[in-house]
């Protein structure tokens, strides 16, 4: 593995004709953590994942997964022995039964763990003799997770794992990811469901228009980021925070809202000195950071 990073990309770019799906993407995913890859639909998440796994060839730039170059077919194949992937639509071979699907996948991995396979089969109550085509999307997701987790992969990549799942299935899925991370698997999952990412991720990479526009440690976000809401009895001075390095500033009539990383005391002091009648400090949610970051980069 390349040091502390399971995934690293440098100026990774993918063009489809004149359209740039991924633009000079620089991504670092730390090992042994859960990293959410957050972005709106069409932000370039799936294309990035497909390039990491060698399904799509990069137009330019480079990247490594578990220290193996993604654009080298042989190295990429070696890497895929240690990486599990759950695709967005979780389509598996419809013509096989659950048992055949498990047997088929098992044959490609020497490190397959039969006891995990059996445990997950029981836990997910997957019917061995049913054809994959007759499984619901929730069941198919569980089967895809079983096939991924029964190998104790070093890295588990999931593309929109909770897409079209019911709340109970989402809960089970998130629990499985947290358990896998607890066993030492690095998890990298794309999503546009901020609530899910906020719930289980240690770190979040925000992607917009094919570029990483934010890289946050969620613990740091919770500890360091603060939203300061200052109310005034008159119009807010237009230069109130103009010389301060803030993450976000919004002024609406008699109210100013600022998001700061480390500087909440100074921001509050500035608001009070400018004649604020009340100053409130609130924690910042990932949703606010995400919306502001993507808006700023649109």
């Amino acid at each position: 593995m390349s040091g502390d990073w399971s995934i690293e990309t440098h100026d990774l770019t993918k063009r489809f004709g004149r359209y740039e799906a991924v633009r000079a993407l620089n991504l670092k995913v730390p090992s042994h953590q859960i990293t959410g890859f957050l972005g709106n639909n069409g932000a370039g998440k799936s294309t990035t994942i497909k390039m990491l796994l060698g399904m799509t060839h990069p137009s330019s730039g480079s990247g490594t997964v578990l220290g193996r170059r993604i654009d080298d077919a042989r190295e990429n194949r070696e890497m895929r022995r240690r990486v599990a992937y759950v695709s967005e639509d979780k389509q598996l071979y419809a013509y096989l039964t659950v048992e055949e699907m498990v047997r088929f996948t098992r044959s490609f991995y020497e490190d397959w763990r039969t006891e995990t396979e059996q445990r997950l089969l029981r836990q997910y109550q997957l019917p061995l003799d049913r054809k994959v085509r007759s499984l619901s999307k929730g069941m198919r997701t569980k089967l895809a997770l079983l096939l991924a987790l029964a190998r104790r992969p070093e890295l588990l990549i999931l593309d929109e794992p909770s897409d079209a799942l019911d709340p109970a299935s989402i809960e089970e899925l998130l629990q499985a990811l947290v358990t896998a991370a607890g066993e030492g698997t690095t998890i990298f999952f794309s999503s546009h469901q901020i609530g899910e990412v906020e719930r289980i991720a240690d770190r979040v990479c925000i992607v917009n228009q094919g570029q990483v526009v934010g890289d946050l440690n969620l613990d740091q976000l919770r500890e360091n980021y603060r939203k300061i809401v200052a109310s005034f009895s008159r119009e807010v001075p237009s230069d109130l925070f103009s010389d301060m390095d803030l993450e976000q500033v919004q002024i609406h009539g008699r109210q100013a809202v600022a998001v700061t990383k480390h500087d909440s005391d100074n921001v509050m002091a500035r608001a009070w000195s400018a004649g604020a009648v009340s100053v409130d400090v609130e924690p910042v949610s990932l949703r606010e950071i995400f919306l502001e970051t993507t808006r700023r980069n649109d």
Partner: protein
Amino acid sequence: MLYLKSWHESRIRFLLSLVFLCGISSCVVFYFAYLHRYDRFRTHPSPDYAHYIWAVIFKGGNSVREMFVLIVLFLGMGGLLRERAHGTAAFSLALPISRWRFVVARGLVGILEVSALSFVPAVTVLALSPAIGQSFPPAQATQFAILWSACGAAFFAGAFLCSALVEGEYASPVTALSALALYSLTLSISVFGKYPLNTLNIHSVMSGEGMPYFRPETAQVIALPWGTLICIFGLAVGLLALSAYVTQRQDF
């Protein structure tokens, strides 16, 4: 396991084809008995059994041979591009296997299926002829089956290449059919009608018509054209290799 997967993917098409070829060949055999009994032959004197079987099964022009070629095109559908249309390409490509191995597995299983189907009319004719009081030389049946195997492999590989180039459940077989029609049309030009240029016509190689190894008076193959068959099989391998090369470069 990849071979088993390829078999699972195509087995329904294969089994349907097998039943169809077996059924149609049986009908051809029993129809001879009907024609013979009620003297319904259009030509006089009525053809002997060997001529009849060659004309209706092995020759061409509304024959079983043409249906076999269409079936082979149908079997040629497959590969990772087709998997993308079905949504399973992501799972397949995430396995620690090269794309070459996927193509080789599907190609080999397909060629084996085509070979098996090549023998179906021959075996059916051999098995059912005694039931109508006729006989067909086993050596002739085997030789036609071998001709069909090699030539069928080339048609299969062509269809497989179309499947690697054109995405879509219907678009790739339509492309393969169009390519076959274009090929057949081109070879219908008179210059290709005579030996040795007619060896470029795989249809003629299959039926033996106009070939030096075929004797029309007895409707019998004298000796198999091994050199031609090896070249045609080489063409099939080349087309499969081209499919693999195309697949290797594709984005999924």
